[in-house]
Each structure stands twice: as C-alpha cells, then as structure tokens.
C-alpha cells in the first residue's frame, strides 16, 4: 500500500506542504530550543569539562563549580601521597571586580591555577601564549566578554581587587553560565585579587596516574580527608548543571517551549491528515467496497505519516544546521547533540503516527455503502 500512500500524499501538494511545515517547525523548534538550552547549561560546567582534572576535591558541600567553599590548601600534600595520583594542584575560584578604562567596575570571576602545571587554566587562546600568564601581573580574559570589560587588548593594565593586572592573553568562547566574565591567572595572583588567605583554596584538582583506578583513588582520598568531597569530572560537571537547572527552573521553561513546538507540529500534521482523509472519504469508501482490509487502509495512513515524519525531519535538520551556524555565538551557544537530533526525530515520528490515528478513526466509520449512493 506504500505506493498508493506516497502518490496520494504527493497528489495533494498543498496539504503535503502544510503537514511538512508542521513537522519541520517541530524539528527546528525542538532542536534550536534544545540546542540553546544545552549550549547554555553546558556553560555551567565549562570549567570542569575543560579543566582536564580527573577528580575534583572540594568542601563537603560542593555543589557548583562557580560557588566553591574554601578548603585548606595543605590537603594538596595529603592527596599527592595517595597511590594512583599523578598530580594534585590547588585551584581557586572567586568573585572580585575589575576596573574599566571608563572609570567603572565590572564583576569578574577570578580563576587561579597552579603556575607550574596550569591545571584548570585558560584554553582556546587566540592572542598570547599559554605561558604568557606567568608574566608579571598576567591575566587572560575572553574576547567575547569585550563589551563588559570595555574591549581589553594585550598589554592593557587593569585593577582587580585593588591590584594591578595586565592582559597577556585573550581566549575565545570561555563564557560562564553566570553573566560574570572569567579572568584566568596564577593561583598566587588570584589569592591576592580575591583577598583571601594563601593557605586556602577552592578545589584540589587531581590527575590520575596511567592505569590508576579512579574509584579507588577517590575512596583513598576520602579516607585520608574525611572532610573533603571527591567527584569525577563528569559527575561534578553534571552537579554544576543540575544546580542551575533546579535553582532556576530553566529546564521547565525550555521544556515547555519545546513541548509547545511539538504540540503545534502534532496539531498541524493531524489536521492535515484529517483534512486529506475528509477529501478522500469516497475513495476510502471505494477501497472498502472493493474489499480492502482494515490493516490495508491503516497502512496507507501509516505510510503517509511515516513519510511526512522522515521527509519533514530531514528538511528540519537541514534547516537546524543552517540556523545553528547563523545564530551560534559563545554567549548564546546552540549546541545540538546527536541525541537531541535523534530524539526529536523519534518524537516527531511518534507524533505523526499519533496524528494518523484520528483520521483512521474517521475512516473506520466510513460505510462502503456510501459509494453506491448517488
């Protein structure tokens, strides 16, 4: 019955276009909305994901990478002694303010990493060298935050927490979930900018020795430092994401918009298939009179629904790809992971199949006698 389904579907070009618009609309909305959401929420774990540490050690109540609690820096030595640990370095994150050329101030998140390893330091440098940060007063900022920091250039002098800082590098695309720009520097300098005790830090970043069991190393760290919490990189990244998800209701608002898109798609496809069936009631009546079985009638609608879903999804994903290129920026990244694209296609397929049920119920009521009545 598939050829009949295809050809009758194509014959009603206007209705076909309407239904395809519905499917494409759903796919584009779900992927762009979802992509914006994923792109935005991934920023919440940016430092963890890019920090290259295998394990994050922090305060017992650590729940978000951007809001750490202070821990004793000497834990570093106890952790370095744990078998399986290749490196353990202090890492500090805290809020401060940066002076602006116009005379104003802008809040910044100062990120300080160990000057020897630069573990957790800046990445994606577009100006300056990775070790430039070792220069006196060196800081690295992101060019995408230029409008907030009044477009810092290499060599510019600013003040952070009342101490001079010099821009020695610019990165591209390091923008956190909060609206506060990151400023990368060395641990010692960060301590000064943040005006905190040198014997404290926010986290201890751990690199494992090759072949070491992460679970066992974490367990040993917990045994040695019962006041510390340890998490694998992926887990702490997800915790940071969940923090914003649960505290802001972001997931609900994006999810509601996405569901709305799916709902609109459902209505458009259902309405189109239903209208098409109403137009063709006598043809379905004739098929029934000729002896078509129920499953054959349904298979026509099924094939039409599947065709709409497949063609609409392909067109939709092509549009998503174009839109993604056009609107993606580091500040508003559109990250469309494969699972989102595949998931939206599956959802649209289910929606199209659900949409075919309504017209099918209408066809079930068609009495083949109608074709014998003038």
């Amino acid at each position, binding site marked *: *019955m598939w*050829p*009949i389904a295809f*050809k*009758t*579907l*194509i*014959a*009603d070009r206007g209705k076909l276009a309407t239904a395809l618009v519905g499917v494409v609309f759903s796919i584009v909305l779900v992927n762009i909305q979802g992509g914006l959401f994923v792109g935005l929420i991934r920023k919440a774990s940016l430092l963890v994901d890019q920090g290259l540490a295998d394990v994050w050690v922090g305060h017992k109540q650590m729940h978000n990478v951007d809001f750490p609690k202070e821990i004793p820096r000497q834990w570093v030595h106890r952790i370095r002694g744990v078998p399986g640990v290749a490196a353990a370095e202090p890492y500090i994150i805290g809020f401060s303010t940066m002076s602006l050329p116009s005379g104003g101030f802008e809040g910044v998140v100062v990120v300080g990493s160990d000057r020897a390893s630069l573990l957790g330091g800046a990445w994606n440098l577009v100006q300056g060298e990775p070790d430039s940060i070792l220069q006196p007063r060196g800081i690295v900022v992101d060019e995408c935050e230029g409008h907030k920091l009044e477009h810092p250039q290499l060599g510019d002098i600013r003040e952070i927490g009342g101490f001079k800082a010099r821009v020695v590098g610019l990165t591209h695309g390091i923008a956190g979930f909060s609206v506060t720009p990151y400023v990368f520097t060395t641990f010692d300098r960060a301590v000064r900018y943040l005006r905190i005790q040198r014997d404290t830090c926010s986290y201890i970043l751990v690199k494992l020795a090759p072949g070491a069991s992460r679970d066992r190393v974490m367990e040993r760290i917990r045994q040695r430092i019962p006041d510390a919490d340890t998490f694998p990189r992926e887990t702490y990244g997800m915790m940071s994401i969940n923090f914003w998800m649960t505290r802001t209701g972001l997931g609900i608002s994006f999810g509601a918009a996405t569901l709305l898109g799916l709902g609109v798609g459902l209505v458009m496809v259902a309405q189109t298939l239903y209208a098409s069936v109403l137009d*063709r009631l*006598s*043809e379905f*009546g*004739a*098929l*029934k*009179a*000729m*002896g*078509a*079985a*129920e499953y*054959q009638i349904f298979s026509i609608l099924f094939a039409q629904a599947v065709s709409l879903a497949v063609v609409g999804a392909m067109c939709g994903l092509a549009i998503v790809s174009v839109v993604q290129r056009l609107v993606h920026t580091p500040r508003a990244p559109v990250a469309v992971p494969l699972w989102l694209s595949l998931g939206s296609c599956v959802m649209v397929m289910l929606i199209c199949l659900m949409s075919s049920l309504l017209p099918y119920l209408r066809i079930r009521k068609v*009495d*083949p*006698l109608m*074709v*014998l*009545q*003038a």
Partner: protein
Amino acid sequence: MVTDVPPVTAALSGVHKSYRRGPASTPVLQGVDLTLRRGRCVFLVGPSGSGKSTLLAILGCILSPDQGRVEILGREISKLSPPERAALRLRHIGFVFQRFHLIRGLNALENVCVPYRLRDELNSTTVGHAVELMHKVGLGKHVQDDPRQMSSGQCQRVALVRALASGAEVLLADEPTASLDARNGQEVMDLLRELTLAEGKSVVVVTHDRRIFPYADEIYRLDEGRLSTSPEEAALMQTSG
C-alpha cells in the same frame, strides 16, 4: 430434452431489509428473490429510493439482509464475518461505481491495478493483463494518464477495467452510463457485455438509462421493495435485442 442452464453465482431468497430512522423502521426490500447465473446480464430498474442500491449492496456483501438468505458463489453471507465478506468482495466481486471513484494521484493503470495490490498479486503478469485489458477498451494510449485529465467516458472505462482486471465472477455496476453521453454509454455497455459475458461472469446493472436496456438478458423492476419482471422493460429489451 436437456437444456443447458448456466450455473448460479448468487441467489437471494425472501430477502428483507429495513432502515431505522429514529423510532420508525422503513422497509426497503420486502421478500426479494433473485438468481444470478454465469454469462447473464441482469438489469435492475426502478424509481429512486426503490431499494436498487440496497439490493446491489447486499449482492456485493456490503450489507446484510434482516431476513432471508443470500448465497454468493455458494457461501451464505450471513455466516461470514465482516473481514470474510471483505475478502469475498476482493476475490470474487467487482464494482463499477456511478462516480467512478478512481483514486486521485494514481494514473489510469495504477487505478486498474488497485485490486491486485489489495490482493498482494501485483506483478508483471497481472500488470500485463491490466495493460492488455486497457488496450482492449481503447485506453492503450492512456495507460499512464492521470484520470483527472481524462473524459468521463474514459474514466468509466478505467473503472470498468479495474472491476474486470481482478477476475471477479460477479460484476455489479451502479448506473455505469449515468455520467456518459449516448455514444460513450453504448461503448461502455458493449465492452461490459463483451468482456464479462464471454468470460462467464454474472453482471448486475442498476440503471435508469432505457437506452441500454437491449443489453440485458433479464430486467427486473424494483418498486417499493418488491422485485418483479416488467413487461414494458422486457418489451424494450426484446425490441432492440
């Protein structure tokens, strides 16, 4: 002396059918007896609302009688489930509808092949047979045409070939010439007679068109749900026959 009587394909005896509208029940068929034989063409005539379409629907296993017995090709239809009746229609009964009811989007040949597709018998042999029939009815040059671009006469011929191509033994035609002019109507009836009766099919034609009465072997008048032979129509049939 032995007379060759063609075998029976359908037999109705004492068939009653009523339609219920609200609390009232309107009788449509009242004790109809009818026998269809192979190679015979039976015409049903009568005023609108006399029950012709209902009788055709019962012969086509679309409706069941309230009372009476209906046997199609030896099978008592009241004992068949709806899917079994649909299967019986698909295998043994062909319809020619007054309004053709060709499927939009399919070309002429694809429309003709719909019964094959429903029977899962679409292959080069059956398509070849369909094309051959289309050539026979003068549609050889229109095999790939869109029925929406064809004349009423051509569409009715497509519908006729669709009913014939499936190899149905009982052919039910509902006002097959109603949408056609005299010439086209005559051509369609010529074809119907030639193609069906030569293959020993039973044909039932519901019609108001007196011009085609000469094509009938028997004419029955249905009036107020009762079937009778009509001397007037019989005279028309014999005059031209």
